[in-house]
């Protein structure tokens, strides 16, 4: 039995990737939950706007690389391009709001009409992204790709099993942490943040208190844009950029937000990590880990994989179904049904 090797193997192939994936989902799910609590609809364009924001960052990255400005302190050039992506995304979402959503708010349309409108925005965004990026995969990760490699880890610890930490993963986890702290500080400590929470709690009373709803909506889109660009860029650095993959993130992001309780930011984060670890855990081949854990002669012969990776959406969906069946308000009671 070699529990240490088992742990290292598990960390390398499951825990670290799941933590990174969960962080990416959390940033996305936070946006969904914010839009839901302020604008009160399910934002279907989330995945595709994330793709567009990332495309802007990639464009900026390529531009910087062409100028010879690359790899600050060995970090990916994309980090330098993020401000550009933010500007593009904030402008894009605010324009979309002005041209599309604002009208439906004004006429007090049913939530589903807004969902439908977000579908239209999704189409348009999707088209724009593909105009620029095509449908294929774009890789834009550069800089030192590893904080430490499998070989370095093995040499350092002397263990049989190796572990690598990619810079993209480390960056993701750290950024997500910083962003979450900053977001909670904003929501709980600043006047604007509190006015957002007030608006989400009780729209009429917020109006009565002199809170300007259009300003709240603007702040919401701005924060969403920041979350989207960061989540999208980190996801792209980690796994490469393909527009369709971003669309497919929609389901796990929604599942995370609903699992945590729609409208609850802390819920979105918890939900995201639950979804990520469930997806990775159920589609992970546990053979290696158990080979280290079981006594000699009892090593497993099969892959010990509960489901093929192709079915990771099924895992997300199963989580969603369980939540809807047993606790539709989510772990942290979100907005009522």
């Amino acid at each position, binding site marked *: 039995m070699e529990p240490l090797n088992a742990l290292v193997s598990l960390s390398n192939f499951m825990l670290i990737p799941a933590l990174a994936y969960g962080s990416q989902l959390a940033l996305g799910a936070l946006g969904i939950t914010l839009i839901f609590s302020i604008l009160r609809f399910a934002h279907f364009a989330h995945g595709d706007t994330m793709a567009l924001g990332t495309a802007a960052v990639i464009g900026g990255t390529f531009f910087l690389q062409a100028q010879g400005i690359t790899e600050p302190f060995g970090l990916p050039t994309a980090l330098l391009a993020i401000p550009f992506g933010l500007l593009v995304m904030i402008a894009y979402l605010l324009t979309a709001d002005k041209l599309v959503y604002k009208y439906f708010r004004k006429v007090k349309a049913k939530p589903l009409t807004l969902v439908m409108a977000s579908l239209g925005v999704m189409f348009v965004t999707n088209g724009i992204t593909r105009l620029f990026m095509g449908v294929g995969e774009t890789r834009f990760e550069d800089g030192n790709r590893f904080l430490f490699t499998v070989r370095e880890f093995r040499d350092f610890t002397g263990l049989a099993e190796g572990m690598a930490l990619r810079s993209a993963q480390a960056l993701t986890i750290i950024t997500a942490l910083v962003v979450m702290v900053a977001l909670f500080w904003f929501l709980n400590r600043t006047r604007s943040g509190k006015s957002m929470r007030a608006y989400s709690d009780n729209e009429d009373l917020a109006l009565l*208190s002199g809170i300007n709803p259009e300003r709240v909506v603007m702040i919401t889109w701005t924060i969403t844009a920041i979350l989207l660009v960061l989540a999208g860029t980190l996801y792209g650095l980690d796994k490469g950029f393909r527009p369709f993959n971003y669309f497919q993130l929609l389901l796990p992001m929604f599942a995370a937000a609903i699992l945590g309780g729609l409208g609850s930011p802390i819920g979105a984060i918890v939900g995201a990590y639950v979804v990520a670890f469930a997806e990775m855990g159920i589609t992970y081949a546990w053979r290696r880990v158990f080979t280290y854990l079981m006594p000699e002669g009892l090593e497993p012969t099969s892959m010990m994989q509960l489901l093929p990776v192709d079915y990771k959406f099924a895992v997300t969906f199963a989580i969603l179904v369980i939540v809807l069946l047993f606790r539709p308000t989510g772990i942290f009671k979100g907005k009522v049904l």
Partner: protein
Amino acid sequence: MTQPFLIGDSMTGGYGGADILHSCTIAVEKGEIAVIVGPNGAGKSTAMKAVFGMLKLREGSVRLQGEDITSLTPQARVRKGMGFVPQTSNIFPSMSVEENLEMGAFIRHDDIKATMEQVYELFPILRDKRRQAAGELSGGQRQQVAVGRALMTKPSVLMLDEPTAGVSPIVMDELFDRIIEIARTGISILMVEQNARQALNIADKGYVLVQGENRYTDTGQALLADPEVRKSFLGG
């Protein structure tokens, strides 16, 4: 005759369809308590909402300190010094008591500490619970939060829509005491009440509305003494 502090003068109007108010007049003097009572569906809340600008008037006007504010939005009226406590959903449930008060003072950009202190002195229980989410408080405490929130703008008129709906009699008495206290500080109170007898008891002026019209208008005590009013509206 001098102008009352706040008056909704001969108000006629409704929510788009048929008129609910018919030339209805409601007024309150500085530092006094005016109470609107009447049977269900008499348009009590509607009359108050009309004074606050949540309903478009077809005829009549609303004047605050002599200034015509008929065309102002409710938000603008808040800035003019009117505070309003709706009957239901009048707090931010997931926010703490203190945050509720802060949100009440959203339009103010000066130091709100002193006002908050006044609210805590008026409702000491809120000071103890200031970090707790307002939605977790009892019904009476929530009403205190709601009133406290409205006081945060330092209004000259406070309008309360059935502040005692759904609270126990003891809490109701307590709340009425606080309202009298608020009036003593020079704030005019305009209030709609189901509990007509208790409300008229503390009222300087009472308005009995029936079907959107003024039926009886007098001091609170006089209305309580009036056998007609007693018979029809106060249950004998």
